[in-house]
């Protein structure tokens, strides 16, 4: 891609995967990881910030919502948290990153509640304000900041959100 340093081998297609426990402590490291990847893949600083934030929102949703029914969520009070180590260690956040020519695609995958709790964000800032603190801003941000966003849910296998951003989405940006 355009900012490959001169003299280094040409940047190949990158396809990598990360598996984390669902803890809020992984969010900051994940953000810096994806931001550094995006930056050296040729995205502008503003685009890097948007990718960083969209990925953070999707990961935070896994940590907060995906496994809440099992007692694994940072939103639950201590007494409602599962202490079963087997349950906790089975609750994973998976991140898949694919980088090609001028394009970055991230999938955030969980094996949580999935279709039993379909992710739904607000459509506008006004709707967000009317809801008064009942959420929906995260998915609004993801849709606003990425060029393509797709949610897939199944009752058995959880939620997978795949988000794509292109290096120069001139048309897209103007459109928004």
């Amino acid at each position, binding site marked *: 891609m355009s900012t490959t340093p001169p003299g280094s081998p040409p940047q190949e297609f990158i396809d990598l995967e990360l598996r984390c426990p669902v803890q*809020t*402590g992984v*969010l*900051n490291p994940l*953000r810096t990881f994806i931001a550094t990847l995006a930056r050296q893949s040729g995205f502008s600083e*503003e685009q890097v*910030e*948007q990718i*960083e*934030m969209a990925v*953070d*929102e999707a990961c*935070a949703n896994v*940590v*907060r919502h995906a496994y809440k029914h099992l007692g694994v969520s*940072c939103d639950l009070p201590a007494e409602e948290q599962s202490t079963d180590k087997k349950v906790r260690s089975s609750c994973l956040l998976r991140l898949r990153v694919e980088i090609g020519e001028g394009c970055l695609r991230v999938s955030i995958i969980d094996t949580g509640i999935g279709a039993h709790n379909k992710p739904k964000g607000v459509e506008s*800032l006004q709707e967000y*304000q009317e809801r*008064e*603190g009942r*959420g929906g*801003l*995260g998915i*609004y*941000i993801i849709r*606003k*900041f990425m060029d393509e966003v797709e949610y897939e849910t199944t009752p058995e296998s959880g939620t997978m959100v795949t988000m794509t951003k292109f290096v120069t989405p001139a048309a897209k940006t103007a459109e928004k």
Partner: protein
Amino acid sequence: MKSYELVVHPVENEADTRKADVIGCLDSHTVVGFERELQSVVDSGANVVILNLESLSYISSAGISALMGLTHRLRKSEGELYLLRPTEKVRRVFRTLGFTTIFRIVDEEAEVGSTPRS
């Protein structure tokens, strides 16, 4: 190094005004502590809160929601939340999402109390 800190300034002249610096990242990891500390600032009798965002390096929807909650609570009692000098990065997020028309963002403390909602 902490990933987040709220430094509350000692109260000076105006008894119902409180000032604090928000340092680091406001995300789902740190927002719980932030909300609790904000609450104790409000409980100490604050009606006007000035949050210095110069050293806030990142804010997620969780942080924005916390600021929205405080804004609503303060406005109910004719108070206000002022966001002082957010970084270009945080400002860009507010602007792109439309929060610049909701929050009172100021560049100088002197503007506090005199800024019309921009």
